[in-house]
């Protein structure tokens, strides 16, 4: 009997030890729990997602050859030690030696070649950015040359943001699905567990090589999806989460949070633009917006100033064009369509819609109240909308958008954190782009010219021209450039970055001030 008791005791002790090692201890100080927002975490593999939070998480558990240093805003080597232009279409990278993936697999030139091929393959959602990248040539284990089909002025930014590096042997062994279950990278954090399909945890990677990102400061990182706005705030209030990832949807909760809770809010300017996209070419089977007068009527119907003031609470700046002032090539001097419902109705009447019409209006990934306000503004001039809110289903929304199924949509675009006008103009206004719902041969030609030159002054001129034509044609009704919010506990040191890539590995907890008794004992000891 005594033996049995001792056996059980021994077993329980072993279990306790095992549990404390295997289960992340989520006490504050040891851990950082991040609310990713409402978009479902359908995949963690950045090759198969356009969700911002998948991109953000990747840059915490993975690395790229280059890295944007948020303090200097410069692109610096990361998985590479150095790089140089061999010719206008070839960049040579000397890879960092001694780097291993989290599973022990060595990082070398074959990983770069494998990753580029994977990211360019059919099904990859970042292939649109990498389509101009021809191949990765292995020179030796630690030297690789990346060739582009034409001189690519944004090559370094694209490599820094979207050339995600995968472990070839592991990926080959476990496949896409296995990788999904247990992602392996080289980054400051390494995968620990899926708590459930909407919550993933990481541990600091002890052998991380360090510069330029630096080692993770907080040992455990968990990231979770909470599908609705109010429960997200509740989770912050009660300490279930420590930080709400940069968002452009929680502005209305700010007065309450600042008034009644111990949380702080940070915001930064960004590339993120919110806009209404009209189907000007009839891809969705709806013809209304083929008429430029209707598109202009929509533009005049929307009261941007009021929406920014009331729904974004000022955490956004009015936008008349397509790009953000942070994009290289931003053109502020474009045709403006000020709020003028009378003019809007007149234009609708001229276009043979004196009584307006009814149309489906799809929204996701944006401020829900802003979407409702736009619908109200449109209703006031006679355009009745069936508003379809796909809040948490960004992936599904975006797939449908690319398939050309939306006659009218309110969406958001962060340009994959590429600070160049091409990152928003190419995916939406080049003739063959799946996100194109309206362009002209002239715009298509100008954008191609801009893509074919490395001369920045010429590119600027091309982008300027393209943006002027786009505004004149009123393909979109741009609303604003948002200043995304990060909401967090006051004792968390974390600064969101203007590129909307949260670097959780830089976060630290403030030390609690010493209590009087602690001070007393310290003095005694001294």
């Amino acid at each position: 009997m005594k033996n049995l008791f001792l056996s059980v005791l021994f077993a329980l002790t072993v279990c306790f030890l095992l549990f404390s090692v295997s289960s992340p201890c989520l006490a504050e100080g040891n851990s950082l729990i991040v609310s990713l927002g409402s978009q479902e975490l359908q995949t963690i593999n950045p090759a198969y997602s356009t969700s911002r939070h998948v991109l953000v998480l990747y840059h915490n558990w993975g690395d790229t050859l280059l890295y944007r240093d948020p303090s200097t805003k410069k692109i610096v080597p990361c998985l590479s030690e150095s790089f140089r232009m061999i010719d206008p279409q070839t960049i040579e990278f000397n890879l960092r030696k001694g780097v291993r993936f989290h599973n022990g697999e060595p990082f070398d030139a074959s990983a770069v070649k494998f990753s580029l091929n994977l990211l360019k393959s059919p099904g990859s959602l970042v292939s649109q950015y990498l389509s101009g990248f021809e191949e990765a040539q292995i020179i030796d284990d630690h030297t690789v040359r990346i060739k582009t089909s034409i001189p690519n002025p944004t090559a370094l930014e694209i490599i820094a943001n979207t050339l995600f590096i995968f472990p070839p042997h592991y990926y080959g062994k476990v496949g896409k699905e296995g990788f999904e279950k247990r992602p392996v990278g080289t980054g400051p954090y390494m995968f620990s567990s899926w708590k459930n399909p909407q919550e993933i945890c990481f541990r600091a990677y002890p052998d991380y090589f360090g510069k330029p990102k630096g080692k993770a400061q907080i040992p455990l990182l968990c990231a979770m999806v909470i599908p609705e706005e109010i429960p997200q705030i509740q989770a912050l209030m009660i300490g279930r989460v420590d930080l709400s990832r940069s968002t452009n949807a929680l502005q209305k909760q700010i007065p309450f949070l600042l008034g009644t809770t111990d949380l702080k809010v940070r915001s930064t300017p960004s590339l993120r633009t919110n806009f209404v996209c009209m189907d000007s070419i009839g891809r969705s089977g709806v013809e209304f917006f083929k008429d430029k007068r209707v598109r202009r009527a929509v533009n005049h119907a929307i009261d941007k100033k009021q929406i920014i003031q009331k729904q974004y609470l000022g955490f956004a700046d009015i936008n008349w064009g397509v790009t953000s002032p942070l994009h290289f090539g931003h053109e502020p001097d474009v045709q403006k369509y000020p709020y003028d419902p009378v003019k809007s109705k007149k234009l609708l009447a001229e276009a043979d819609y004196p009584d307006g019409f009814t149309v489906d209006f799809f929204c996701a990934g944006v401020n829900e109240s802003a979407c409702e306000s736009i619908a109200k503004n449109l209703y006031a001039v006679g355009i009745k909308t069936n508003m379809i809110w796909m809040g948490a289903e960004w992936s599904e929304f975006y797939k449908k958008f690319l398939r050309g199924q939306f006659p009218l949509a309110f969406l958001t675009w962060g340009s994959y954190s590429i600070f160049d006008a091409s990152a928003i103009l190419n995916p939406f206004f080049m003739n063959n782009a799946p996100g194109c719902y309206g362009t002209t041969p002239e715009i298509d030609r100008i954008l191609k010219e801009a893509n074919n030159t490395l001369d920045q002054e010429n590119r600027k001129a091309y982008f300027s021209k393209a943006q002027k034509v786009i505004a004149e044609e009123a393909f979109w009704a741009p609303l604003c450039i948002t200043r995304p919010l990060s909401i967090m506990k006051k004792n968390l040191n974390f600064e969101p970055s203007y590129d909307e890539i949260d670097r959780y590995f830089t976060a630290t907890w403030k030390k609690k001030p010493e209590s009087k008794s602690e001070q007393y004992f310290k003095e005694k000891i001294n």
Partner: protein
Amino acid sequence: MIDNLRRRGKKSNRSFFVIWGVILLFGISAPFAPTIRTHAFALDKPQQSGVAALYLYNFLMFVEWPEGTFHDSKLMQVKIFGNTALFESLKPMIGKIVRGKKLAVTEGLGKKDLVEPYHVLFIDSSKMPFVSETLKRLENRSILTISNKQGFTDMGGMVFLKDLSSPTVKEGHAKRFEINLTAVEKARLRIGSRLLRLSDIVYKGVDR
């Protein structure tokens, strides 16, 4: 001698199985065990009232009152009946602008409150004996009635705030309120979709 050894062998076999049995059981159940942070989420009173205040604030943000109900009143008025902790949680918001109006929050419910216009009335579960009478007096007026008492909607109330304990991820999908749309519609109020998505919607008669 041999028997003794056999017995010892059986005993040590038994211990072996017990040890590994317990470890195995623990191992299987460990992934399902809540994390330490989740354990700590039995909300204390101030947290509960803080969360209730958050919900109340969101009702103010996302409910539409019929035009002209409050004429040109520059106040957004809330009455809290029987819940001082909730009142205290909302206190820092008093005087702040909510939807273009100054927020006014008062505690208690006097006779004149049954005739004067205001937007929201929260009735605590401890004040249930007064509920039927109060709701009857407020009939046909566009006042959003909220309570934390189970069965409030059966009595003709509009919103029942459910147990306000922590949102685990699973709870992130859970319904926070019960909304009686019959009563809401009768009062000519419109509740925003983001609140309805968090609600169990019921239709319960308001004839008393």
